[in-house]
């Protein structure tokens, strides 16, 4: 008699940490905070075995500062935090955008504001991820909805950080972070690992050269190029400039390198969308309920479908317009008072829209979603 293979259960936070090591992270700087701490604990135990170094810093500002420093000398670097710590990191997220230093930040979202509800989930940091640091910039933020996807998307987060030389934020929530579920990843599901594009031409190196790719090639500090990295607005050589043409070129380049590459960056999943007349747009743990809601609605003869956004920023407005414009109804459930809903409402243009708020610091019940859709359709005389 052969024993049946036991399913391997894994926690979301651990999947995130494992993904980071798989992606080649060799430096972690962090500070304990619920509900993300398991990521730091795993990195402390496993990074030394994987040839990397773990540091527990004095606060979250130091954590992000240290990972930017390690990335400047060529290491894939990572930190993990939650709401209050994410707030403290905001200034230096802008530094990494400005100086184009690849870093990955996992923010396991808890309910806020302030200390809020440290052990309970929310998606209240979605707009903070986009706009929390001062100044015009673009950003990449990813919201996985399962343990396995957390692993895969963490690897992809590193890939995107390296490819576009920018900070990438993994927006998990407490439910995904602490969820334990089956974890079975085959080798062909693991994304190819990408390294930032390097040049060996240290003699003629122009650190922030404007090229068609919009992403400058990299030489780590300490490898013979002896250049300058700054958070000041800089010219192609990396030195402070206030010349209006250089300033404008710089700002557009760091913005466009992300906003004009949405097709490459943005990921999503379609569920029952082929003949859908009602669309639910969702992301993160709430998308699990949304899938169930779609099935419930289908059982009640409502042709419902789901667009599950994996990439939240840059916002995939083209996709949302193409798939939602002109439908009977678009519903967006979120574990907040309506954050990404604003973007969806903007993108769908004159299509009936309802933002379903979740402020109970818990998942939104699929039945609540389905009932809301049916009552809205009844109000409009659509059923």
């Amino acid at each position, binding site marked *: 008699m052969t024993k049946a293979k036991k399913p391997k259960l894994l926690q979301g936070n651990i999947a995130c940490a494992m993904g980071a090591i798989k992606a080649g992270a060799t430096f972690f700087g962090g500070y304990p905070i619920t509900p993300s701490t398991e990521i730091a604990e795993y990195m402390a135990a496993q990074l030394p075995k994987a040839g990397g170094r773990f540091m527990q810093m004095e606060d979250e500002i130091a954590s992000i500062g240290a990972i930017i*420093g390690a990335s400047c000398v060529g290491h894939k670097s990572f930190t993990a935090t939650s709401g209050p710590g994410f707030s403290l990191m905001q200034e230096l997220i802008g530094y990494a955008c400005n100086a184009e230093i690849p870093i990955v930040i996992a923010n396991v979202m808890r309910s806020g504001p302030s200390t809020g509800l440290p052990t309970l989930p929310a998606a209240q940091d979605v707009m903070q991820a986009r706009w929390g640091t001062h100044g015009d910039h673009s950003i990449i933020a990813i919201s996985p909805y399962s343990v396995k996807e957390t692993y895969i998307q963490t690897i992809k987060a590193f890939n995107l950080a390296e490819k576009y030389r920018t900070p990438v934020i993994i927006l998990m929530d407490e439910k995904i972070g602490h969820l334990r579920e089956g974890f079975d990843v085959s080798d062909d599901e693991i994304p190819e690992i990408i390294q930032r594009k390097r040049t060996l031409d240290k003699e003629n190196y122009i650190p922030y050269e404007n090229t068609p790719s919009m992403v400058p090639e990299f030489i780590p500090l300490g490898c013979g190029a002896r250049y300058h990295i700054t958070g000041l607005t800089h010219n192609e050589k990396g030195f402070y400039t206030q010349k209006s043409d250089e300033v404008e070129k710089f700002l557009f380049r760091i913005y466009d390198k992300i906003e004009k590459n949405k097709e490459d960056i943005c990921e999503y999943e379609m569920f029952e969308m082929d003949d859908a007349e009602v669309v639910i747009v969702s992301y993160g743990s709430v998308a699990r309920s949304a899938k169930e809601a779609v099935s419930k609605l289908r059982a009640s003869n409502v042709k419902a479908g789901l667009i599950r956004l994996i990439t939240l920023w840059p916002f995939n407005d083209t996709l949302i317009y193409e798939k939602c414009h002109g439908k009977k109804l678009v519903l967006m459930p979120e574990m907040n008072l309506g954050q990404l809903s604003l973007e969806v409402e903007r993108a769908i243009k004159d299509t009936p829209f309802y933002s379903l708020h979740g402020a109970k610091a818990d998942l939104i019940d699929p039945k609540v979603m389905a009932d809301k859709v049916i009552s809205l359709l009844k109000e409009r005389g659509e059923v």
Partner: protein
Amino acid sequence: MQTAYKKYFRDNLPHIWCPGCGNGIVMGAFARAIEMLDYDKDEVLVVSGIGCSSRITGYLDFNTLHTAHGRALAFATGAKVAEPRLKTFVIMGDGDAAAIGGNHFIHACRRNIDITTIIINNNIYGMTGGQFSPLTPKGRKATTAPYGNIDRSFDIVDLSKGAGATYIARGDVFHAFRLSYLIAEAARHKGFSVVEAVSTCPISYGRHNKFKGAADMVNYLKKRTIALNRASRMNPEALEGKIITGIFYESEDEEYCDAFERLEASVKKGARK
């Protein structure tokens, strides 16, 4: 020696500092220290924060990292731990190091990471036009202390000692060559080393505090500074108002990157068992 250090500068001078500013003297002292140490320029990393002092990294021909206000040591710590081969220096101002960056400063001291930190103390926030800092002496005036500063000030030597730094020195911009020596000694020391470089800001500090100009401020340093070995033989009354300079403390303890190597060796050994 007088001109040899020029090779350590990029070709983007003149600098932005006001006439009579001490930052240029510290920058020169730093370049001479590197000359004494004979370091390969490619192996030197210089990290700064924000403020007048932080602009030094823009002029020096090394690997240079100009970070955010107060955060130079956080960036430098990450870089050094990731690449311990780099000879890592941090240059900060007094507000940069002791106010907004105070937490990073004490924790860098505590870890004993092999970084040489130079705190240029001109007693004021210069870049923003003369607000009092944690190193502005009590009673002095600043734009945000127009009736005199009522805050007590830090003593960088005592602060570093309490936090665990293993090399602590104080120099000044009048004794510029001695400052070079103190910086070079700090770099030779394995562990976290602190050099306070007492400097002058004639425009944003001196003018508010009855100094007649840059020369007057440097003369003030000349008169008020006293070497540690002489000071140790003087009574406290005679030392009132003096600025004591020299190497205050030097000790040995495990360096932080060495501790990482030790940890990694034990993890590998454990894995073999």
